[in-house]
């Protein structure tokens, strides 16, 4: 893959990010500037920044890769990622802003007045933040390896270093400008090549996405296998391949079926059936639940709401974010679908996450247009890694500096940023085989089973107690965390247990709600005495708040 434009494009994005960061540094002087941008960020900037921060490697690369691999069933990922903002808007946005809480631990203390609950929430914020940071750094490593031939650790280290330095030196106001810029960059980087790809597809005579005889190679292709798999060739023979094996296919030859990949045209095109595929249906609903309810519990999403001036502004900002994110998610589907035609070899190598960055050159050829577009996409992908990692790092560092180090100074925040950045970098360097979108999905499941019930019940139900909240987080969140650890570290499983562990939200979220309500009812006397005042503060219109 010798595209000499990719590296300059990535360097340009990184430099612009750092430059905006330094511009922000000149404005950021007090601790309050660092942590909440002094509350003078306008709603439009804020909405673009939230969108920019939210659209991560999983959205930019992972969704298209999953669609290429599994077809229509995984369209629930983008739908759920967007719908998460609707749930946030309906149940959390305005009251959370009015509560004055800056982080989730803040909310615990404000609403329930318990220091121990605050500590528990801190642990979960850090766990979710790190779990979400690892795949971002991984994505950076894989992208640089695919496009520029750099060794895997280089990309991960570059992104980690740039982000840590930027956050430590500029704080959040700088990050707000960076994020807003990066939303528009990411949208452009997917939209412009998508137009060219669609035109090329027209010019090629609209080749069928799912030809009746299965996918075929359009050109003679040599494939280097990167993951163990069993291939079923067109003549029915099976072939076991290992990483490093090279396979050559002639033009027009059918793409072999790969174990674990939805290859058959009908399976890819159509939703899973009942009866024949109950586990698929369970997995779909579990995914819907995790993404719908998990967004509100992600630490880097909540932290943004404090930069809105009041509750009504928080609601309007969320609505704009929903629209911005929705527009963006129209695009990855195009890449996933066209990837079936132009990059079928990715189904054999298993590197489906690379479809977005490889497709422009595969479809348009290695001419100037193809190389320019490939460089643009690579720049967008890097923007995705940089922005999401910045947001996550800011929130994890904020929690570490106030709750673990126990000082609110700028120096403390900088030290916390370094600590928060080093751990996920070390993890990312040691686990390269994990599926980017799967790990992100697990982070959503943990957030949905711990902080979602806490926020929803805390905002709407007077009866919530600190004991109930702690029990719910421990049982529900704990079950989700256990599932994550088994998925990442444990043995491979099959059948229903594997489904329950790989997509835990459908049982851990109801479990968390049930435990939280039951224990709160049992410890009714511990309900805060000033609950009436708190409810007034959370729900009264902003004009009454002075």
């Amino acid at each position, binding site marked *: 893959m010798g595209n000499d434009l990719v590296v300059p494009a990535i360097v340009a994005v990184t430099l612009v990010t750092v430059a905006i960061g330094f511009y922000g540094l000149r404005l950021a002087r007090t601790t309050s500037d660092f942590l909440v941008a002094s509350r003078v960020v306008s709603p439009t900037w804020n909405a673009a920044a939230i969108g920019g921060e939210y659209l991560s490697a999983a959205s930019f690369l992972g969704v298209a890769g999953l669609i290429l691999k599994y077809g229509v069933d995984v369209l629930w990922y983008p739908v759920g990622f967007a719908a998460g903002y609707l749930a946030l808007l309906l149940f959390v946005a305005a009251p959370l802003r009015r509560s004055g809480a800056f982080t989730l631990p803040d909310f615990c203390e404000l609403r329930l007045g318990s220091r121990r609950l605050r500590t528990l929430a801190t642990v979960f914020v850090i766990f979710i933040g790190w779990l979400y940071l690892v795949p971002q750094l991984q994505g950076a490593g894989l992208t640089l390896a695919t496009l520029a031939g750099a060794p895997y650790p280089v990309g991960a280290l570059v992104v980690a270093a740039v982000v840590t330095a930027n956050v430590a030196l500029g704080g959040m106001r700088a990050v707000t400008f960076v994020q807003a810029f990066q939303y528009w960059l990411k949208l452009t980087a997917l939209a412009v090549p998508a137009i060219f790809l669609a035109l090329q597809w027209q010019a090629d005579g609209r080749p069928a996405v799912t030809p009746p005889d299965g996918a075929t190679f359009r050109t003679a292709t040599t494939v280097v296998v990167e993951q163990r798999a069993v291939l079923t060739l067109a003549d029915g023979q099976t072939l076991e391949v290992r990483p490093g094996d090279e396979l050559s296919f002639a033009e027009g030859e059918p793409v072999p079926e790969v174990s674990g990949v939805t290859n058959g045209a009908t399976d890819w*095109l159509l939703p899973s059936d009942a009866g024949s595929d109950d586990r698929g249906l369970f997995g779909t609903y579990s995914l819907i639940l995790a993404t719908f309810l998990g967004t509100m519990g992600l630490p880097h999403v909540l932290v943004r709401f404090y930069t809105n001036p009041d509750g009504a502004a928080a609601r309007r900002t969320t609505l704009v974010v929903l629209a911005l994110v929705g527009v963006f998610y129209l695009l990855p589907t195009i890449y996933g679908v066209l990837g079936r035609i132009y990059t079928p070899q990715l189904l054999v190598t298993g590197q489906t996450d690379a479809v977005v960055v490889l497709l422009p050159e595969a479809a348009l050829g290695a001419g100037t247009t193809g190389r320019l577009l490939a460089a643009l996409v690579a720049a967008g992908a890097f923007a995705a890694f940089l922005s999401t990692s910045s947001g996550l790092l800011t929130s994890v560092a904020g929690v570490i500096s106030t709750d673990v180090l126990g000082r609110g100074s700028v120096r403390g925040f900088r030290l916390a940023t370094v600590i928060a950045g080093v751990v996920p970098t070390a993890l990312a360097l040691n686990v390269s085989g994990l599926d980017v979108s799967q790990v992100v999905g697990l982070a959503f499941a943990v957030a949905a089973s711990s902080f979602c019930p806490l926020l929803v019940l805390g905002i709407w139900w007077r009866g919530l107690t600190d004991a109930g909240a702690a029990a719910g987080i421990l049982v529900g969140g704990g079950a989700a965390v256990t599932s994550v650890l088994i998925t990442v570290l444990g043995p491979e499983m099959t059948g229903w247990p594997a489904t329950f562990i790989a997509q835990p939200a459908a049982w851990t979220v109801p479990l968390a709600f049930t435990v939280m309500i039951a224990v709160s009812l049992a410890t009714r006397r511990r309900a805060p005495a000033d609950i009436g005042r708190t409810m007034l503060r959370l729900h009264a219109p902003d004009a009454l708040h002075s």
Partner: protein
Amino acid sequence: MAAEDAPPAPRRPEPAATSDSPVGSGPPARTRVVLAEVSRRSRWPAGTHTELTQQTRVGEALVRGLVRAQLALALQLSAVVMVGLGGLPWLFAIAPSVGRMTVLGVNLPWLLLGVLSFPFLVAVGWTYVRLAERNEQDFTDLVQRPER
């Protein structure tokens, strides 16, 4: 209500007089925010707010009513989404023929999920913002009435 005007201190928003306090000699940008809040305050007669914060029976009932109205609205709209979107996997599962239908050459599930679901979500969100703000307006009108 000094506590509610408090600056965005990272640890907890209670402390009223930290070094970051906008009441003091902060940068001009921050002063503007405070002035906006002060001018807003003047629109509200002192008695109304006291009624709510002093936890009188009337005030308590008013707030409960508002919370119930907002929660009902949020639940109704999430029910719309649950039926409209959440029903789709089930529909495709029990009636596979629906999943096989094509519109303009595109299979229906791809069109529904990949394209139409996003404007649908935005429409629900827009409805919510409008109705939630109307609920709040009703509440402020109700609070204001005894003062007239």
